[in-house]
Structures are given as C-alpha cells and as structure tokens.
C-alpha cells in the first residue's frame, strides 16, 4: 500500500517535471528568438495549426457531400461550360499556380475587369469576389459562368449539357432531383437566360415561371457541386508554420527554418508595419473589406497624356469596390435569404448586418490571403502591382485613394525593413494540403 503511494507520488513528480521542462523549453525557445508572451500568443493565432474546422455552409446542403464534390470537380475542369467550349473554372484558377492565372485581368471568352484570386482556403470566407458581391461559395461559382467576358454562356445552355451527357445526367439525378424534359425546345429554348443579349432575355421571359425556376435550380445545383469541390482545397503548412510549431514545442533547432531576415520581417509584420491588423488569423486575412488606396489602373492618367487632356477624356467608371458589391449581394437572386439558399433566416447574419453605408465600403476591396503570396503575382484586384516590392512601397507611403479614403497610414519603414517583410512573405509558401487527384481534371 505504502509502496503504491510512493510509486504514485513518483509518477506525479516526474509528470510535473515533464510539464515544467516543456514550459521551460517553450519559453526558452521563444526567448531565444526574442518573442514576448503576447507576441507568441499573436503568432499562435497566425499558425496554420490554429485553423478551425471548416464551418458548415448552411446555404448549401450538399456542401460536404463527397459525391457532390466529385461531381463539382468534373464541372470545375469542364470546358463545355462556356460560350466557346474553351473556358472552365480551371482556366483562371489553374491548380499548378495555386488556383490563380498570373494575369492582371483574367481572360475567359474576353477580358475580365479584375484579377482572379486564388481559392485555396476560400471556403472560410463569408464573402466572395474582390467586392464581396456573393455571400456563398456556390453563388460565387455562378457569377463567372454567366459573365459575358468569363465563361460567356448561360443557365439554359449549362442545364442542357447535363441533360445531354448520360454520365453527368446519371450523377446529377442521383445527387439532386430528376431533370425536367429539356427535349422540348419550345418550352426550354437553348439559350434563354436573364443575362446576355436581348434575344436570350426575351426567350427567358417567354418561358413559364415554373420552367424558369426549374432551369435556375439546375444552375444553382451546378454551383453547389462546384462549391463542394472547392471546400476541399485547404492550405498546407509552410516554413512559417514550422517555425511557430518549433517555438511552441520548444525546439530551438526547429526555429532555424527561418532566416534572421525572415524573422525580422515577421517581427515587423506583427509590429511596426501593422500588417497583422488585417492579414490576421491562420489564413492571413480577416476576410474583411478595406480601402488601401490601390491605384485604379482603368482611370489612371497615362504618362504621355497632359493633365488637361486627361480631365477632358472619357474615362471608365471608377471601381467603387465593396460599396457596389454589397448592393449586388443584397439584390442577388442567389443570396443567403433567397429561395435557392438552403439556409434559415437566422443563418444570414453576415448579409443582414453588413455595412451598406459608403463610409467603410467606398473603394474597399477584400483582404486577400497572404499564404503563397510570393507565387501569386500580380497583386491587388486588377494586378496593379507586379511585384511585392511595389506593394510594400505603396503601403509604406499610403498615398491618397482615388476613391473613398485610404485607411492606411504611412509606415515610413526603411528600405532594409521592407526587404525583411518581403523575405518573411516568402516563408508563407507551401503546396495545398490536397490529395493530388483533386488537383487535376478527373
């Protein structure tokens, strides 16, 4: 009995020693790197290990259905879903370059007005597109499909592709509902849609409301399947994450994964440069909208043009970003509160309480993730900056915004400090944490 108590006491003693040793080494490793406790707590929040479980998408009851994701992957890579049979989602979201396309303005059947953002980890965001004009991943997927410059097609055309493809039709009807009889061309014209040219629009409005809803439902299910696939695209751990893990586990040797300049850059990132205020959390984004005074390439005065001529010149409308985006989201037939959403009214808090005022939305664009940022140039919503050095220079000076008010304050960092931040950003690169078979056309 006594021996047992002594044995238990010894076990407790050694357990305490082990816990203390871990704490000592964690503190030691962090101290060796010069991080305070509050900085370490902040760094932990940026660590990929802090990424929570992917939240459910109440707007899409197929969001976590593996069969829907498999179908969605097929649709994502299928060129037939376009006006010319040459454009798929993967045309602008190329897996080999981390689901971006390397262009300032993406190219589908024409030139888009903005750059295609990457989609790794995008399912964590409550808003989609640079201006947040969609409040669900599936409704985002539908936007480019009917855009005249991206896929260029329409919902009637896409419904017919599924109807006419025996494999797709079987999968679709197994997942969703039986397809209506689309062989009746008078009832279901080939190119009828509420978008595009006048003829398509007229044909669309000649259809009965029931038939229009039947076609739209197929279109919506296409989006929901694509979203189910996109929800599987998760980020993988980078050198930065290995560094934080080494700090947290108290392995001083593990912290050598970052160079001195990269660590200095990280210190600036969470400190003097204040990058972390918006690029916050394990995805390095708060998913919010901010006006950072990014120049508008469409309305910028060319160097060869005198100011007077520029003032008199016809210019494209100014891109007001989120100010227009939130209005479009509220009016969208595919928003959270709409009949095609599977959500309950109380699930739509983001839409219900979104800021709709011009203050805080005018000229604001979505904060992008910084994971893999060094591999996804060019930068900003229309690729205004070709290099990260240009981006950092912009943030350092915080020029006046062309529309709205720039929220940035001049950083006045030295050249060397900017280089260190850029060096740190290189540590955020990593391949996605996705099975290889999900990264190619099935």
């Amino acid at each position, binding site marked *: 009995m006594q021996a047992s108590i002594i044995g238990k006491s010894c076990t407790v003693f050694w357990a305490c020693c082990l816990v203390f040793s871990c704490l*000592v080494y964690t503190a030691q490793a962090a101290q060796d790197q010069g991080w305070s406790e509050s900085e370490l707590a902040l760094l932990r929040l940026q660590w990929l290990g802090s990424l929570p479980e992917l939240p459910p998408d109440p707007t899409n009851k197929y969001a976590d259905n593996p069969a829907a994701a498999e179908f969605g992957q097929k649709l994502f890579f299928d060129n037939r879903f376009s006006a010319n049979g040459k454009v798929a989602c993967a045309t602008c979201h190329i897996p080999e370059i981390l689901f971006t396309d390397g262009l300032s303005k993406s190219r589908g059947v024409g030139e888009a007005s903005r750059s295609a953002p990457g989609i790794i980890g995008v399912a964590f965001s409550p808003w989609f597109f640079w201006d947040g004009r969609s409040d669900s991943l599936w409704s985002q997927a539908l936007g480019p499909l009917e855009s005249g410059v991206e896929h260029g097609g329409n919902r009637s055309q896409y419904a017919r592709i599924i109807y006419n493809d025996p494999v797709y039709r079987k999968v679709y009807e197994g997942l969703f509902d039986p397809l209506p009889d689309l062989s009746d061309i008078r009832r279901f014209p080939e190119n009828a849609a509420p978008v595009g040219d006048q003829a398509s629009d007229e044909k669309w409005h000649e259809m009965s409301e029931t038939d229009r809803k039947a076609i739209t439902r197929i279109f919506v299910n296409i989006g929901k399947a694509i979203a189910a696939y996109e929800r599987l695209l998760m980020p993988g751990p980078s050198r930065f994450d290995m560094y934080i893990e080494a700090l947290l586990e108290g392995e001083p040797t593990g912290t050598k994964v970052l160079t001195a300049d990269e660590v200095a850059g990280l210190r600036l990132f969470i400190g003097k440069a204040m990058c972390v*205020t918006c690029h*916050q959390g394990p995805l390095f984004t*708060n998913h919010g909208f901010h006006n950072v005074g990014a120049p508008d390439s469409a309305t910028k005065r060319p160097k060869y043009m005198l100011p007077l001529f520029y003032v008199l010149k016809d210019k494209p409308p100014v891109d007001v970003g989120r100010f227009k985006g939130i209005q479009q989201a509220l009016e969208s037939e595919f928003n959270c509160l709409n009949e095609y959403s599977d959500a309950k009214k109380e699930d739509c808090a983001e839409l219900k309480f*979104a800021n709709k005022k011009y203050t805080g939305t005018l000229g604001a664009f979505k904060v992008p993730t910084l994971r893999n940022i060094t591999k996804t140039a060019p930068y900003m919503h229309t690729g205004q900056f070709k290099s990260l050095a240009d981006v950092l220079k912009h943030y350092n000076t915080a020029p006046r915004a062309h529309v709205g*008010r720039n929220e940035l304050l001049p950083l006045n960092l030295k050249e060397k400090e900017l280089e260190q931040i850029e060096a740190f950003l290189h540590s955020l690169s990593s391949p996605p944490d996705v099975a290889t078979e999900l990264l190619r056309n099935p």
Partner: protein
Amino acid sequence: MEYITKLKRYLVGFSLATGLCFTVAVNAADQSQDSATTTDSIHFHVSYKSKVEPLPLNRIHSWILHVDTLDGKPVEKAVITVFGGMPAHTHGLPTEPEVTEIGDGDYLVEGLKFSMTGIWHLWFNIRAGDVTDKIKFDIEF
C-alpha cells in the same frame, strides 16, 4: 554547477508559466467586459454582456445592453442606435448592428463584429423620452 543551471531553468519556466496563466486570465477578463464593465453618462448608467465570451474577433455576435437611470431604475422604451469604429484607421464598424428592447432595461444588440486587432470605440446613442445621451465603450483586441 550544472544542477544549479537546471534548477534556474525550472524556476524561470515556472515563473513564466505562472505569469502566462495570470496574463491569460487578465486578458480574458479584459475582453469579456462583463456586466461589471459599466459606463456612466450624464443621464444613464450602462453595462453590457457579450453572449460570446471572451469577445470574439472577426465573428458576428450579440450583446445584452443594460440601461439604468443614475438612481438605478431600468430605462424602458429607449431608442438606441449603435455606431463606432477604429480611430487609428479612421474607419467605422464593418456591420450595421441593430438594437431591440427585451425588457427591464435590457436591450439586445445584434450584428456586432470586430474585424481587426487594435482599439475599437463603440458608441450607443440612447434616447429615452426627452432625454438623449451617448455612451462610449473602448474595446481592445
């Protein structure tokens, strides 16, 4: 000598661990800003309690706001509006919160979201009968 160094390390570790636990507790108390956190204006005594504690960063959530007169009587049928933002970044709230009365001086504030680290100012404009007043809470993440 080596033994003393090891002992020192354990002591440092123990102190840091204790310090860390203490700091976390203080921060959590700061962030929860429970009903003990009150602000007085000329006319009202106001407190709030978040339905999610500690206050969540970057997540829509609700508060219960309690409004009393300065002599401790609950204020009913008040019209309350919310505004605020981050003074350091010269921007407002990322959401448009709504306030509805629950009763006994309690008001439900829905749609609050703090999307960035730093200091937020949250103002409540309270109108009860002929009396109007403003109350500010400072929130830090």
